[in-house]
């Protein structure tokens, strides 16, 4: 039996995200047309846009929280617009980690319980150890049993990153992750996000109007 050689770059070159001709119209409100773009597996990309350019709408479309009026979105070769609503919930839980502009948590649960929440809700095996390892990677292990409300904004955003990572998502979507942070925290959080996405081999898409990030990313799409 002979083994066929597969170059390691093959997987890297496969496209994680591919958007073509996406349009979205709110029932009572603005209509958006977004440029076509794609991102290779493991890539990191910035979607830049001013307020009102439909940044959050685009992120929600990518996350399958909204359905495009026109066009197609493929994540890891799956056309998300074709999935039924319950399949989509499952797909999202399994493959996508989302970080929002302001970090929100289940207030009644501790940091560590919030971190294992994606594992539980997406039906994966609950692995506290893994959640702890990620917390350690972000130097927040001492906050494990604290309610998230007691953390600073910067810490909360780091916990939100940890939560997005815990399920080993193929795709991490971040909506304005730095806009609420000062320069120091912003650059720390962005550094962390890029590092952690790389460590877990996830594709990172950041949607932002934050011009501070502009020069940090090679791959940018202006909306």
């Amino acid at each position, binding site marked *: 039996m002979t083994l066929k050689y597969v170059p390691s770059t093959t997987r890297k070159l496969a496209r994680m995200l591919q958007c073509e001709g996406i349009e979205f119209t709110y029932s009572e409100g603005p209509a958006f047309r977004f440029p076509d773009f794609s991102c290779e597996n493991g890539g990191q990309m910035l979607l830049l846009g001013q307020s009102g350019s439909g940044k*959050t*709408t685009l992120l*929600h479309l990518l*996350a399958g*929280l*909204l359905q495009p009026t026109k066009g197609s979105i493929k994540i890891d070769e799956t056309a998300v617009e074709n999935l039924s*609503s*319950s399949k989509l*919930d*499952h797909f*999202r*839980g*399994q493959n996508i980690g*989302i970080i*929002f*502009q*302001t970090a*929100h*948590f*289940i*207030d*009644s*649960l501790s940091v560590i*319980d919030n971190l*294992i*929440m*994606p*594992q*539980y*809700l*997406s*039906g994966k095996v*609950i692995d506290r150890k893994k959640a702890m390892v990620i917390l350690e990677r972000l130097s927040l292990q001492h906050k494990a049993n604290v309610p998230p409300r007691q953390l600073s904004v910067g810490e909360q955003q780091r916990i939100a990153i940890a*939560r997005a990572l815990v399920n080993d998502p193929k795709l991490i979507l971040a909506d304005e992750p730095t806009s609420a942070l000062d320069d120091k925290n912003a650059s720390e959080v962005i550094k962390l996000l890029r590092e952690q996405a790389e460590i877990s081999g996830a594709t990172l898409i950041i949607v932002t109007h934050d011009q501070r990030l502009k020069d940090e990313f090679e791959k940018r799409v202006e909306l």
Partner: protein
Amino acid sequence: MNLLKISWANIRNKPLNTTLSLLLLAFGVGIISLLLVMQSQLKEQFDRNIKDIDMVLGAKGSPLQLILSAVYQVDAPTGNINMLEARRVMKHPYIADAIPMAYGDNYLKYRIVGTTEKYAQHYGAVVEEGNFYSEPFEATIGRSVADEMGMKVGDTFYSAHGLEDNTDVHTNRIFTVVGIFAESHTVVDQLILTPIQSIWDVHTEEGDTIPDSEREYTAVLLKKKNPLAVMTIPNTIKDTNMSIALPAIEINRLNENFGLGMKALSAIALIIVIISFISVFISLFNSLKDRKYELALMRTMGASRSKVFTLILQEGLILSVLGFFIGFVLSRIGLLILSYFMKENFHYSMNDLGPIPMEWLMFIITIFVGSLASLLPAIRAVQIDISKTLADG
């Protein structure tokens, strides 16, 4: 991690709302439960003591008082009746059985009843220690009397005139305990039984003889042979100081009067319960506003609609079940307190703390209404527009 844990964490995260809902439900359920269990136990005791007694013959007066004193030993006797006149009724062809009684004395608040062996047999009281009395001034005592007073076979005591008072002691005659009954859960448990002759002799000087025509009973328990007895016998005693009372009728009347108060209390309790469910509803509904983002977030993490629905429904159910059980425990504490006072005053007790069938029904209703109260909030939670909620975040 599971949904129950999240629900529980959410309930604990709102201690004030939770406490209010639980308090209301617990009090409502507690009062209803207490009324139900009290009614059921009193009825059981009443029925047990009334069994097979169709009529009570006694002195003219309040028929209810006659029943309460002769059958339940909780009220004062209506007076005495002439023995020979009473015996005429006892031998009436419509009467199947008759048990004469003479009472009105006590020993440290435990009533002394002069009667025949038939009385004990009627209530199924069997002698556990010693013997049934055979001579005057011998006494066989109920289990509660023996336990509470620490009396043993061979102990002696004096009787006192009246039912409570211990001032007018008949020191002329001394009673000896010759036997103790096993617990029968009837009125016998609280009584000291002795031959009727003892009661007569206590009230006369030694050596005096009283002609039969002057001897007296206090009451006679009657069992009829013919249903017509109820109609005819009162006519035969028209010219005496005697009267006939029917336990079934008197107790029904008592229940009706009692029942009115019970009904009013039940209605108040019911209103409290309804308010408690409204409180559960409002508390869930309000918390939805604060938790909208949280729930949308859970959906983005892969939570299905049914999980979110279950989460909210569960919170209402946990509150309902918890409130019910706290209410149940409260009702039993109330029962024990009431029982203590009843024992002090009437020598009756209500000690069966187990759930009664009506309470199982109440539990099912609680679950049902609890789910109903959390249904709308749960549906609302499912309908949350994830994208809009997160964008407004």
